[in-house]
């Protein structure tokens, strides 16, 4: 623990940063050149605009903030985003190192605490890390390189044009003289950061690491030796352990409990009631009763003894079966029009044939392998938190709010995250730790969530009912497309329940429907939130893509067409689809400028064609096998997946092969892109086959991996082939962490249809084929 804590402390104070490395000067100076509201495209060092400047804290690229060099040449690079498995903790510093001509073997990565004023936006969510920070980090590295070169030129009294940084040294070209980065550290640190318009990025032909996939994740060795530190692993002197009994129903309260019984358990130190926060509660703890003890086991046994009785409140009637019926009824009624082109009603009335289909996608849960955990120490008017949070900056603000402190008095240290998938962007567990440490008079308290706590007290992937109606003309051309989406909104955490998807959720793969249909209407129906809804990897893209991509395959089957050819026909010719004029409210384009990231059906077509080609679409398959295809643009990235299934006589489905084509613009770390695509197939197959959270009497009915089944090794997706569309640096990098997920489930159920003739419209598959 000590070394971890020291790293963070060094990190907080740049002056002290180098003490932990080796003494000497670093590039220490705190200036932020990039105006907070500036989009990167206004700068010479950036080639295109992104939405980075619109996020809290914006983008910072100053090497005085991110880079320090010790006299022994060790280059410390700060990584300001949380690491949950995507590799951004490695990939962004790798980009800095490449641009500054640092030798990766001499680079040390330092995790930033939550401080968005200083480091820029830290909300590791929305597949944004590379998308928003590849340009600032390249500029940061390039500026550092120029400062080192300038320092050498001054030391040698030679013109700037005669020196060049090369693999951790600056070379005087005419004489061949060399100076190492360690020698230049102090002088370079004294240099002002060059103006951004004077920062010269490398030509891609000069890249050592960017785009190569030759850098291993920085924590690899620690992970394989069990040394990597996650929040569940935190220990510090004097620390006590806590578990919390939380109300089983969202909005519920404690009625009574037996503190005395819990206190009788050896090792139990204190029983503390945590108040519930009325809705909208944002990420506030659910409330309940905490048991604080000398170790986790004693805390768990104490909690068992509490015997809490609860008052359930108005969500005590939440029942997944009833709710599904309500959503279905609402999906069959006209909804709010969110995008409208042509005249769908007229086109449907005049259609030769109308096909209407409904799809259901249940609640899901992240079930990160590391259940949430946090340590907090609240004493002397200050709070310090160590936690596995995706949003350290947001957590800092929330802890400050909960503690009635200024943000300056709150330090949030980020551990590695044992999975995130959106769950850990909600910091309720860190807030619990802070409340308990304050109650314990400043003793460090670790709040441990068990797997049962995790599954029963999550922020769930929203349940959804999708109703799609298509009209065919006499030539079997689709002339009308009406898609009604009904799903409780995650905005209910932040405001009075909007009772339907918000612009943010519609932007997740519905409002940007790319189909070439003259009469098109997208609608939302009413659905109230009866639990905590939260982001889950790729969010509403999952139900939207499932409905759209299933429906296209259903139409193809109806018409006796090849599903891939028909999908391409639905997408239509290569063009920019611009829904901005036909949306009723606003078009949310993942927070990024439309001009940089439009809906490009040429790119959509290309991934479909590539995946089909690589998969050998149309090849002869063994009996019981089938292939399905689906495509989705999400997080500004285009992904098409071909799934091959094998269905045996008893209805068991396996997935012998997956081919996924991904166009995510310029690829910074192809090796990690492949791992994300492989992982997305596994998560996608979990969604398609197994994962479902259901409610009865307001309570989650699942509790651990026995009843919340997720994919295990050998159950499919063991041969995932990733086909990366090669793009030059001029093609804006887009998201990678999430976009592999949405096309998977419809590609899978389309394959099941191809193999069996049975159309799966309700997820998960479960036992539907053996019934």
């Amino acid at each position, binding site marked *: 623990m000590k070394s971890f804590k020291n790293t963070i402390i060094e990190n907080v104070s740049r002056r002290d940063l180098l003490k932990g490395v080796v003494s000497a000067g670093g590039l220490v100076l705190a200036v932020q050149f990039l105006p907070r509201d500036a989009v990167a495209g206004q700068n010479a060092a950036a080639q295109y605009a992104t939405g980075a400047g619109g996020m809290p804290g914006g983008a910072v690229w100053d090497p005085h903030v991110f880079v320090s060099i010790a006299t022994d040449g060790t280059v410390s690079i700060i990584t300001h985003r949380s690491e949950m498995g995507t590799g951004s903790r490695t990939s962004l510093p790798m980009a800095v190192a490449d641009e500054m001509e640092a030798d990766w073997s001499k680079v040390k990565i330092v995790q930033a605490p939550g401080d968005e004023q200083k480091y820029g936006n830290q909300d590791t969510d929305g597949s944004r890390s590379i998308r928003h920070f590849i340009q600032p980090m390249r500029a940061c590295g390039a500026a550092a390189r120029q400062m080192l070169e300038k320092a050498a030129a001054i030391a040698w009294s030679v013109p700037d044009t005669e020196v060049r940084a090369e693999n951790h040294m600056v070379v005087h070209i005419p004489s061949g003289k060399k100076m190492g980065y360690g020698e230049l550290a102090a002088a370079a640190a004294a240099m002002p950061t060059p103006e951004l318009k004077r920062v010269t990025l490398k030509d891609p032909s000069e890249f050592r690491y960017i785009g190569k996939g030759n850098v291993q994740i920085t924590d*690899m060795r*620690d992970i*394989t*030796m069990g040394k990597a*530190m996650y929040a569940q692993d935190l220990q510090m002197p004097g620390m006590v352990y806590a578990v919390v009994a939380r109300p089983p129903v969202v909005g519920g309260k404690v009625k009574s409990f037996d503190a005395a019984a819990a206190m009788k358990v*050896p090792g139990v130190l204190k029983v503390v009631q945590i108040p519930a926060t009325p809705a909208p509660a944002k990420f506030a703890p659910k409330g309940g009763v905490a048991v604080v003890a000398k170790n986790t086991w004693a805390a768990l046994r104490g909690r068992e003894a509490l015997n809490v009785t609860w008052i359930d409140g108005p969500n005590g009637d939440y029942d997944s079966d009833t709710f599904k019926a309500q959503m279905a009824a609402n999906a069959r009624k006209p909804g709010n029009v969110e995008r409208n082109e042509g005249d769908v009603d007229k086109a449907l009335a005049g259609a030769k044939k109308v096909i209407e289909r409904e799809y259901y996608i249940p609640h899901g849960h992240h079930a990160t392998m*590391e259940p949430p955990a946090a340590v907090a120490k609240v004493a002397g008017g200050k709070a310090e938190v160590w936690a596995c949070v995706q949003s350290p900056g947001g957590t800092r603000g929330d802890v400050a709010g909960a503690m009635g402190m200024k943000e300056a008095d709150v330090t949030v240290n980020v551990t590695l995250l044992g*999975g995130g998938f959106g769950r850990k962007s909600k910091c309720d567990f860190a807030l619990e730790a802070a409340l308990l440490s304050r109650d314990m008079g400043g003793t460090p308290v670790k709040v441990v969530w068990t797997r049962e706590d995790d599954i029963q007290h999550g922020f769930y992937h929203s349940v959804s009912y999708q109703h799609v109606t298509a009209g065919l003309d006499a030539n079997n051309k689709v002339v009308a497309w009406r898609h009604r989406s009904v799903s409780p909104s995650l905005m209910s955490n932040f405001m009075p329940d909007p009772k339907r998807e918000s612009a943010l959720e519609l932007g997740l793969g519905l409002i940007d429907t790319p189909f070439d249909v003259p009469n098109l209407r997208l609608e939302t129906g009413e659905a109230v939130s009866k639990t905590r809804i939260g982001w889950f990897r790729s969010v509403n893209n999952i139900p939207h893509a499932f409905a759209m991509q299933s429906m296209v395959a259903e139409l193809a089957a109806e018409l006796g067409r090849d599903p891939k050819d028909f999908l391409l026909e639905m997408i239509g010719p290569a063009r920019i689809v611009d829904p901005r004029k036909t949306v009723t409210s606003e078009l949310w384009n993942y927070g990024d400028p439309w001009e940089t990231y439009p809906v490009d059906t040429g790119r959509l077509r290309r991934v479909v064609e590539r995946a089909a080609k690589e998969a050998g679409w149309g090849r002869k398959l063994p009996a019981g096998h089938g292939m399905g295809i689906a495509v989705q643009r999400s997080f500004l990235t285009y992904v098409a997946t071909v799934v091959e299934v094998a269905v045996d006589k008893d209805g068991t489905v396996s997935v012998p092969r997956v081919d996924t084509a991904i166009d995510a613009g310029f690829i910074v770390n192809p090796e990690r892109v492949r791992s994300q695509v492989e992982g997305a197939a596994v998560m996608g197959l979990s969604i398609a086959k197994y994962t479902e959270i259901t409610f009865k009497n307001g309570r989650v009915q699942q509790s*651990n991996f026995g009843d919340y089944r997720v994919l295990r090794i*050998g159950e499919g997706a063991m041969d995932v082939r990733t086909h990366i569309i090669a793009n030059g640096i001029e093609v804006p990098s887009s998201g990678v962490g999430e976009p592999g997920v949405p096309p998977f489930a419809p590609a899978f159920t389309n394959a099941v249809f191809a193999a069996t003739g049975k159309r799966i419209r309700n997820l998960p598959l479960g036992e539907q084929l053996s019934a």
Partner: protein
Amino acid sequence: MQVKVNKQDRKYEGDPQMPLMWYLRDELGLTGTKFGCGVGLCGACTVHVNGKAVRSCAMSMKDVAGQAVTTIEGLSPDGNHPIQKAWRAENVPQCGYCQPGQIMQGAALLIENKKPSDEEIKSTMAGNICRCGCYQRIFAAVKAASKEV
């Protein structure tokens, strides 16, 4: 009671019902043994007891009295057990949390069966969940390591 952990003798005098996992993590600070489910369903807490893979969350201190426990920290002094090397060569981990348990399970398999078949690898590793979905590479790494041991 006595228990040997990573070749070191330890004395334990607490609750005999306490799962080995919490003893390793909370009392000894051996946090490479991860807490994932607490009920033997995910394999994140896999350690070796007398050379065999067990779920340390599902084994009480009473059960391990007098036994020899090896955790990921004790698998190899320099972290270069063939399976650890294979893990790195195949770039297996994403978040990394389940990986020590996976590695301990794979290492135990190779103690018992130096040349496991593909099916044996899958059935043995099926008790270890990876939510990031590294299965394809876990399989490849165990298979590669089986050629080295």
